[in-house]
């Protein structure tokens, strides 16, 4: 599974993109966020304010209950500010 982080999420986690094995107990976006928080203080800080986090699975916006699986490209980022 490819994980990507943008803007201040990238800065707080300290990395823009990483490959990880999805643990067997992680089946949804919300479970994935809880698991990521266990990976270190950078992740914990980055993910503290859930309201400020958007999740895209394979380039589509998804909600907390959306299923995740090995092989997905999953991106975490703050609300967008382009244009």
């Amino acid at each position, binding site marked *: 599974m490819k994980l*990507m982080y*943008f*803007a*201040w999420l990238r800065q707080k986690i300290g990395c823009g993109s990483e490959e990880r094995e999805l643990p067997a107990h992680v089946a949804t976006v919300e479970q994935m966020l809880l698991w990521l928080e266990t990976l270190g203080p950078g992740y914990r800080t980055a993910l503290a304010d859930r309201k400020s986090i958007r999740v*895209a699975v394979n*380039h589509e*916006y998804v909600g907390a209950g959306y299923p995740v699986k090995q092989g997905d490209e999953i*991106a975490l*980022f*703050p*609300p*967008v*500010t*382009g*244009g």
Partner: protein
Amino acid sequence: MIRVQQEDFDVGAEIARLTAGNRAIGGLALFVGLVRDMADREKIDAMTLEHYPGMTEKKLAEIEAEAQRRWPLEASLIVHRYGRLEPGDNIVLVACASPHRDAAFDACRFLIDWLKTEAPFWKLEETGKGPKWVEARDSDDRAKKRWVAD
């Protein structure tokens, strides 16, 4: 047509390309977004636009297709820059051409409103107090909602 690029764009050349040979166009509406030197009463020296390659192009193409579905457009174009930009620099160009001016205006505004809330770009401003990520605006969410009740 959509493009995501670091280089500047030339509005005159883009218009010429977009309308070339098409005599059904009666109205062309454009929007150009530029970097301001002030934001929330703070001086901006520069900004860096980060984006999510792959998803950006997909989202822009979806938004453009939706505009083409909603309005009778002869041509449309979104060009969005990324990278480091300074005050006065172009950020984004949206253009819609239609036989009729109302369709051109509505589609153009729809595109920029949706792009602002859907396309994965993030602005990092360089201010006198250091770098600062721009926060999303409620007004942009409201602007997008203009188009949802349709």
